[in-house]
């Protein structure tokens, strides 16, 4: 209240003419302005690519969109996209199992936490891209290495979030449940599980990003039938249109998957605390 309620514009410009009405209305709708910015950028891309730049290197968005059917018509591309989806899904499921499992084990046991958490954090800090060649050496150039590398990226955030979530449970809840005669399974189902859900979903959101990153890195590194293979081919053939189309499709998949986990997180985080 008082002096600090001074509006910003009034301080900056003591004498300010009344702003024209349309500007004020726009000020209230940043969403529209944002849309405008995106459209503007697309227009710049379109015009620059169409009239000024080399078609071998950049393709205008209109061409990319219209050639999507040709992209999907290219033999192997649709199955490569499905393959990527499969790799991500498999890696994600495995990450959740491994991450939640280890996270619970380490989180629930004080001694395990003290001993192994530093190791977990140390491993999490390693730049995993450096060991990608090892993964390929061990798991081969096929689907297995992509899934493995995805799991390697995805399980740590889940592990760490679950551990943190379990640690937050107040000990008094354990004590009171035990005093009422709860056995191990009941303890898990009624005390541990409900309380770790928000952290679990946060971990899943981070885990999904990790899995996506891991699978994509592995694909781009070496791929015989996946999207990495096709990005190589399109790059070598200077097929900018198909390359941009493929990248857009992958970006769309990534956005969709991220949105799903994000929404899930919001929903489950809200209905708890």
């Amino acid at each position: 209240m008082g002096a600090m309620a001074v509006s910003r514009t009034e301080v900056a410009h003591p004498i300010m003419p009344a702003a024209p009405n349309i500007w004020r209305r726009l000020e209230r709708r940043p969403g529209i302005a944002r849309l405008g910015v995106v459209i503007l950028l697309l227009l710049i891309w379109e015009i620059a690519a169409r009239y000024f730049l080399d078609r071998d290197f950049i393709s205008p968005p209109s061409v990319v969109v219209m050639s999507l059917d040709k992209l999907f018509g290219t033999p192997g591309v649709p199955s490569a996209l499905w393959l990527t989806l499969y790799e991500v899904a498999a890696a994600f499921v495995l990450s959740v199992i491994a991450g939640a499992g280890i996270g619970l084990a380490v989180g629930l046991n004080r001694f395990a936490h003290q001993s192994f958490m530093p190791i977990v954090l140390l491993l999490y800090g390693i730049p995993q891209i450096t060991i990608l060649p090892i993964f390929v050496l061990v798991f081969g150039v096929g689907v297995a290495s992509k899934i493995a590398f995805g799991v390697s990226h995805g399980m740590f955030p889940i592990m760490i979030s679950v551990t943190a979530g379990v640690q937050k449970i107040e000990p008094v809840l354990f004590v009171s449940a035990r005093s009422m005669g709860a056995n191990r399974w009941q303890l898990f189902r009624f005390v541990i599980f409900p309380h770790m859900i928000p952290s679990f979903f946060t971990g899943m959101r981070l885990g999904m990003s990790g899995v996506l990153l891991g699978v994509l890195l592995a694909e781009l590194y070496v791929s015989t039938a996946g999207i990495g293979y096709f990005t190589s081919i399109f790059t070598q053939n200077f097929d900018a249109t198909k390359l941009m189309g493929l990248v857009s499709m992958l970006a769309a998949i990534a956005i969709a998957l991220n949105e799903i986990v994000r929404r899930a997180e919001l929903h489950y985080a809200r209905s708890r605390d």
Partner: protein
Amino acid sequence: MNSDGRATTQQRLLSRLMQIAFIAVLLLLWSLATTVWGVSRILLPNPLNVWHQLVEVVSSGAFIPDLKVTLGELTAAFAIAMSLGVSLGYSISRSRFLIKVFEPLLAAIYAIPIILFLPLYVLLLGLGPGSKIALGATISFFPIVLSTIAGFGNVDRRLVIVARSMGANDLQMFRHVLLPAALPVILAGLRMGFTVALLSVIASETIASFAGLGHHIVDLAENMDTARMFAYIVFVIAIVAFLNAVVSRLERWVRWR
């Protein structure tokens, strides 16, 4: 949660022992695997060989040309990201409206795995340092611009008002009020930007390059020189850890200048 102080120290010692034991067992398994159990040397090199290779690499300075390439790409990428990120971030932060328009947009783009841009950059700029610098700059840009917006945008309005009332002009306002207030947040963003730039440079060297540390590891893998590859991997991990530590130290030092 330990009410008994003595138990904590005892437990701490035990956990420390546990960790050492864990690592020791791993090393033991590794040695056994390569000697007695006969795991292919191409798959898993003998730990002693790896050690010898590591010593050789470091002492001979064989890593230097690749290190130069990687560091050069990193420097260029970070410099670009920092100048673009801070200036754009500052400009956007000047208006509440601009912040509401651009901040969500930038945050949304940052959520996509930007590694996807690598093939596009390789198509545009080839396999040389250019594409690495471009990707590194792109990835590094986002945490920097977002933290700059947050830093300058969240300066306590009261401080700005007080400075204005004392007659501060725009330059003085920036230098004496906005910048010191925003600095901690911006520095955190710069540190994050540096880390992702480094990781991205190494990643893109691994995937599509003909020089640099990342590429060298791949090169050794393709030549099945697994022992030396392991040595290089250890070396690169050490370099990354070292650089990150230096940057952290730097951040703390600037904060207290």
